[in-house]
Every structure is written in structure tokens, then in C-alpha cells.
């Protein structure tokens, strides 16, 4: 990777991190768990990496197997994460 490209990635990293900091400021305590769960689902974005890794042709390489392993788990994380967050949030609706 050339430095210019790396630097761009770092820009993105830095700005996104700042943004992450700023977004969460005053969260009411009841939302702590859903927020945690919801952002956990987002961290399942690693699924994109897993997809790319699984893209490896043939079943001979360790890489492919690792990719598939990652894909299954990442999918669990993503699907389960979003679903469970939604369930939680549904409960919060005011009586």
C-alpha cells in the first residue's frame, strides 16, 4: 500500500473515531444495552472481510476455510445482533 493511500485510510479512521466519540454523549441508561448490542451488530461489518476471504477459489487453502469460518460467525453476529437489538427496542415502547 502506498503512503498516500494509507494516509487517506488514516484520515478516514481519525475522522470516524472522532465522530464515534461525539455521537455518544448523553445516552439514557436504559439504552446502554441496546446501544451496545446495536453497535456490536455494526462491528459485524467484518462480514465484508469474511466475504472477500471466502472468495478464494477451491477448498484446498486454509485461507478459504478460515474465510468460511469467519463468514458463518460474522453472519451470526450481524443477523443475531440486529434481531436481538430490535427485540429489545420493541419492548421499550411506552405502555
Amino acid at each position: 500500500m502506498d503512503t498516500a493511500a494509507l494516509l487517506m485510510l488514516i484520515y478516514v479512521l481519525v475522522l470516524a473515531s472522532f465522530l464515534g466519540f461525539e455521537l455518544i454523549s448523553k445516552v439514557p441508561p436504559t439504552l446502554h444495552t441496546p446501544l451496545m448490542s446495536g453497535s456490536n451488530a455494526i462491528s459485524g461489518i467484518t462480514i465484508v472481510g469474511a466475504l472477500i476471504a471466502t472468495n478464494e477459489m477451491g477448498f484446498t487453502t486454509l485461507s478459504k476455510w478460515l474465510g468460511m469460518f469467519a463468514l458463518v460467525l460474522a453472519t451470526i453476529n450481524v443477523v443475531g445482533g440486529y434481531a436481538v437489538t430490535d427485540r429489545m427496542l420493541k419492548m421499550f415502547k411506552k405502555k
Partner: protein
Amino acid sequence: MSSIVQVAYLVSSILFVMGIKFLGKTKDARRGNFLSAIGMLIAVVATLVTLDILTFVEIFACILVGGAIGLYYAKKVEMTQIPEMVALFNGFGGIASLAVALSDHFLKTEVLQVEIDTVNSVSIIASVLIGGVTFTGSMVAWMKLNGKISGQPIMFTGQHLLNLLLLVAFLGVAVMTYLFQIEPIYITILVVIALLVGVLIVIPIGGADMPVVISLLNSYSGMAACATGFILNNNVLIVAGSLVGASGIILTQIMCKAMNRSLMNVLLGGFGQTVAAGPQDGPQIVIKEVGVEEAAMLFDSASSVIVVPGYGMAVAQAQHVIRELMEQCEKRNIDFRFAIHPVAGRMPGHMNVLLAEANISYDKLIEMEAINDDFSNTDLVFVVGANDVVNPAARTNPQSPIYGMPILNADKARTVIVSKRSMGKGYAGIENELFGYPNCLMLFGDAKQTITKVVGEMKEMA
């Protein structure tokens, strides 16, 4: 990568940002979750577009399996088990990042046989470390929470030393991994160390602190995804990963604050258990604390509130701020009354004098006999500096010095919040087991000061 995919990634990044933003707002949270799910879908679909059509079978198989499992557990799980579920999912995310990093490592070293450049190598190592720690850490948290292992902090001498040694070892092996990329042994050792560290970090922390730990590990799994982004040179991974990484840290901090703990304190472990500041004598009462913010949320969501004032209200001179609390509640159409115990305070009519001073109209003050049956239909009872007058021992424990004294049935309410400074005793000098009841939350601090804060929070919510 075609630019359409890149644009899609940009869109999903934006959706993640908005998703997290909304998740922090009570009324938008569900929409936030939905938006971020859409973002995820877009990212996945966009990625699929770039992929080789031939691998679709495996990919769909994996997605199907993973999706089914995820959905099944998400639907099946009991609401009370959600924290453990989050821990579990989080662990999977971590191990997935680790696996992707490994996959890339082996792809480059074994299949393509190219040299891995520094940036990539560092990213892989970071991903392995963070992903590994996230995984085993989450697993331990999960087991602690669902009781598969004891929630007690597990400590042994030399724990900190061991951690330090492992860290040094990791750094050493990491350098080796970089220098001798062909040798799979080094990266394997890295994986093992990372997994070990995850376990060691979490076992000394008590079960009560697990939510904080999970939140922290969640932040880690974001960072792992971010590292993976650097490996794959992928923006959406970086954005989503760093968003989660950063917001996770802040959330962890907020949670710590809400629990009146410092993050350091939690991480160093061993101070684990929420204080069971029990007495020397008698059985240990294990209590739950509540923060002012959560207390404010509880008021906000109640539809009926009964305040039980006691001598502590008089000492704190909290009557005026309680009137404010009343105004806040009445603005929300919450039914708000006072239950006056005949001997609350230290002189007959003590509460009456003070509440009259605070201009609380007489018809809000209900006598014990008239209100005692209403507690069981009440969402929230707020006990302010009262103790003996709500002590269930008066009903149940013939040995107690207050046995036979009629008391207010505060314990019968759905939720009870008790405002007092400490676990200090009342006039009768006895323990109050109400404080350990499952529906009871302790709001520690001088009544006037804490209630002022609660009112402040409520004003903000409005």
C-alpha cells in the same frame, strides 16, 4: 473495485453513523438500528457484486447457516439473557476478524506467496490480537453471566505479572511474524497468546461488572474490524469499525459512571462485586444501585408515583426539590402522591410541617391506612430518607424491635427507589431487608443533592 461499490460503501458508512446517532435517542433508537441494518445489507450486497460468481454457493451456504443460527438465538433468547447473548455475538465478531486476518495472511504467504508489507502486517497482527482477545474475553463474560462459570472474580497471585509477560511475548512473536512471514508457527503462537490474554483479562472481573466488560469488548471488536479494514484496504470496514471502537469506549465510560465505578477500577478487577456494604451482624444484604440518570428515566416512564418521605428528607431539607420533582412528574401526567407514615420523622407531624413549607397541597398527602392498598398498583415508589417506616421486618420478624408497628407497603410496588446517603440505619437501629429486594434500587447520596440531579435530568428529557 468498481466505484459503484465504493459509493455503496460510502452510503453504508453514512447509514452506520446515523444508526449509532439514533440508537442513543430513546424515541429514535429502533429506527437507528434499522438504518444501520440497511447499511449492513448494502455493504454485503455491494461486496457480493465484486465477487466471483462461482464462490456464491459456499458464500450463501455460510450466510444461510450463520443467519439461521443468529436469528434462532435472537428470537429464542429470554429477555433477561440478552447481555450474555450480546457477549456471545460479540465474541463471534472478534473471532471472525481474527479469521479474516489469518486468512489474508495465509493467502499472501501460502497461496499467492507475496511479501506482506509493513502496514498490512501490522494490521494483521493487530487484528489477531484484538480479535483474539475479544473472542475469549467475550466467551468468559458469557459464561460468567449465564453461570457456566462462577461470577466471582477469579484471582491468583502473579496475575498481573503473567499478563505483562504475555504482552512482552506477544510483541516479540509479532516481530518474528513480520520477519519470517513464511513460518506459520509464529502467527499461530500469536493467536494462542491473544486467546490466552482474553481469558486472563476477564476472569478477575466480577459478574456485576460484566456489562461494562462486554461494552469494552464490543469496542475492541470494532477496532478489530477496523484493523481488518486496513488489511483489505476497505473504507467501510474502517469507518464502521472505528465508529464502534470509539463510541464503544465512550459508552463504556458512561456505563462505568452510571455505576459509580471508574473504568480503571473495573479493568484492574477484583473490586468486582457491586458493594454489598452489609453490616457486620445479620445476613448480608445484596443491593442494586441506581444512578440519577436511570432514576430519572424510571420516573419518566412511570404512570404512578408515591413518595414516602422520612426523617432523611428533613435532614437533607429536600422538601423543596421534591416539590420540583412533583411538578416534573405532573407535567408528564404522572399520578403523584405522598404516603405519610404516622411516625415518619422525629416528631408528630414532622413531614406535614416540611411539606407544607414546600407548598405541597394537603390533598397530595395520604395517610397510611388510606394508601397502603394502592402500593401494589403503583409503578414507582420513591422512598426519601425513610427507613424504619418501610421496613418489612415490622410485618414479618417477631424478633425485630419494630415488630407490630404498621408500615407502609412500599415493597409491594413494581419498583422502589430509595434515596439515602449510605446503608445507614434508621431510628430503630436495625437492618432493612427491603433494600435487598429485587424490585428495590438504591440511589445513594444526600437526598437534596441527588434529587436535584434527578430533576435536572428529567428537565432535559422533556
